[in-house]
């Protein structure tokens, strides 16, 4: 299959991007300054991320759509206000996760942002579940640009006036350069920021404009170190079809009002696990010293019994040390539990720790 390119591919090239294949797309892993500089720039200033490979699924329908979606997602969608977003999951009957996603209530329906590697399968699953009653559009004509970091609000507001009025996890339509843009205040870095849905033919000029105002392009490498410091899950690593939201320590994302009656796919398993606890749970892990524990690193207790596995691990540039996330048996999931990680055939000490590794700077609401 031919590798796909986003509408910003040429811009990445002219900014000396190093490319990797990600979910069938040619994506920038880093630019000339490198991952650590890009990471720190995002934390202190404003980073631009091309996330156009992600799926933008628009589903249109009346109130019956809300009812149908509540049979799928563990969310109180009836009480979700227009332009408000929620983090959620598409699950199977065993509460195994097909994908994690952000769903936003829009005027005529819902917008769901899906992971690039999952979007086509998600579309198929949702089409089968919803039938032909609702109009569904996995929109390939739109790019998705994220801008993240403390200066992002000022920079973006100078181009799209009014975005500074958005609260965290809300969105709205804005007019800019003779087109309607959907902007949400959200992100994946632990910083304040926005995601902008924009037509492909306008994306390059829009990003050039952001760069002119002082923001810089950031690659997938720094996106990974940023999200890991923020304790956020990456599908295919922390989450997959064999993990449930309870095991992933994401029970906060399940609406409380949906737990008494269930009625969503996977609800039985979720309700059982909420009551009895899961046998393994996602935790933060800090190796002692500078040692890095990568994905698939085995975790042991002091009797040489394997008690878990690392799902993501790297060096955290803002934490200035190694950080990881992984799954451990329930009895080892308490903060400050001493564990051993096996790297290159030797066991090294590490500690279970609280998430996030880096404190968030989200804007909660606007006065």
């Amino acid at each position: 299959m031919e590798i796909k390119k986003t509408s910003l591919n040429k811009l990445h090239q002219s900014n000396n991007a190093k490319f990797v294949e990600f979910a069938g797309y040619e994506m920038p892993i880093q630019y000339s300054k490198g991952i650590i500089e890009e990471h720190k720039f995002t934390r202190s200033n404003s980073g631009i991320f091309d996330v156009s490979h992600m799926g933008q699924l628009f589903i249109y329908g009346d109130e019956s759509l809300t009812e149908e979606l509540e049979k799928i997602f563990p969310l109180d969608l009836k009480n979700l206000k227009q332009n408000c977003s929620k983090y959620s999951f598409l699950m199977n009957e065993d509460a195994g996760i097909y994908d994690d996603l952000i769903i936003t209530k829009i005027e005529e329906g819902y917008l769901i942002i899906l992971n690039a590697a999952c979007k086509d399968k998600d579309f198929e699953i949702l089409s089968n579940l919803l039938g032909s009653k609702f109009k569904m559009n996995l929109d390939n004509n739109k790019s998705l640009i994220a801008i993240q970091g403390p200066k992002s609000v000022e920079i973006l507001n100078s181009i799209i006036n009014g975005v500074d009025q958005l609260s965290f996890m809300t969105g709205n339509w804005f007019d800019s350069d003779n087109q309607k843009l959907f902007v949400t205040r959200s992100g994946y870095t632990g910083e304040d920021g926005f995601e902008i849905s924009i037509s492909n033919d306008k994306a390059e000029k829009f990003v050039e404009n952001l760069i002119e105002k002082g923001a810089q392009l950031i690659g997938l490498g720094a996106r990974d170190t940023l999200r890991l410091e923020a304790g956020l899950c990456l599908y295919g690593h922390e989450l997959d079809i064999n993990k449930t939201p309870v095991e992933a320590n994401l029970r906060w994302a399940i609406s409380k009002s949906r737990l008494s009656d269930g009625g969503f796919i996977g609800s039985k398993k979720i309700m059982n696990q909420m009551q009895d606890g899961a046998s393994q749970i996602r935790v933060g892990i800090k190796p002692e010293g500078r040692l890095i524990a990568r994905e698939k690193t085995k975790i042991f207790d002091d009797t040489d019994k394997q008690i878990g596995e690392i799902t993501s691990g790297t060096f955290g540039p803002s934490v200035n040390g190694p950080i990881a996330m992984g799954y451990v048996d329930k009895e080892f999931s308490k903060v400050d539990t001493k564990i051993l990680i096996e790297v290159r055939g030797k066991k090294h000490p590490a500690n279970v720790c609280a998430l996030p590794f880096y404190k968030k700077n989200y804007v909660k609401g606007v006065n």
Partner: protein
Amino acid sequence: MSEVKFSKEHEWITLEGDVATIGITKHATEMLGDIVFAELPEKGSNVEKDGTAGVVESTKAASDVYTPVSGEVVDTNQSIVDDPAKINEDPEGSAWFFKLKIKDTTELDTLMNKEEYDKFAKETSS
């Protein structure tokens, strides 16, 4: 000090008497990106030509460091373990990895000179 020689695994080596100093090349650091972890061989241990003699990790991945010649490790550069970013800053100078007392200086004959290495690096990275 002898002429700097280079290996296909992107190490550089210089010789002073029978003690060789070994590090990784600038080209290697550019391929790796930001280096955030370094592990060196133990002082007093013996390493064999083309065997592993350390590890470097970037934000992205771990890579073995090989020794281009055999010998006994007589010194290691602790400063790059404490501050791995130094390897990106000065890979072919102050950020050397280890020193070996070598047994067989003819092992250096198979290595590349600067011109040969630059050509090799260019060909293999494109």
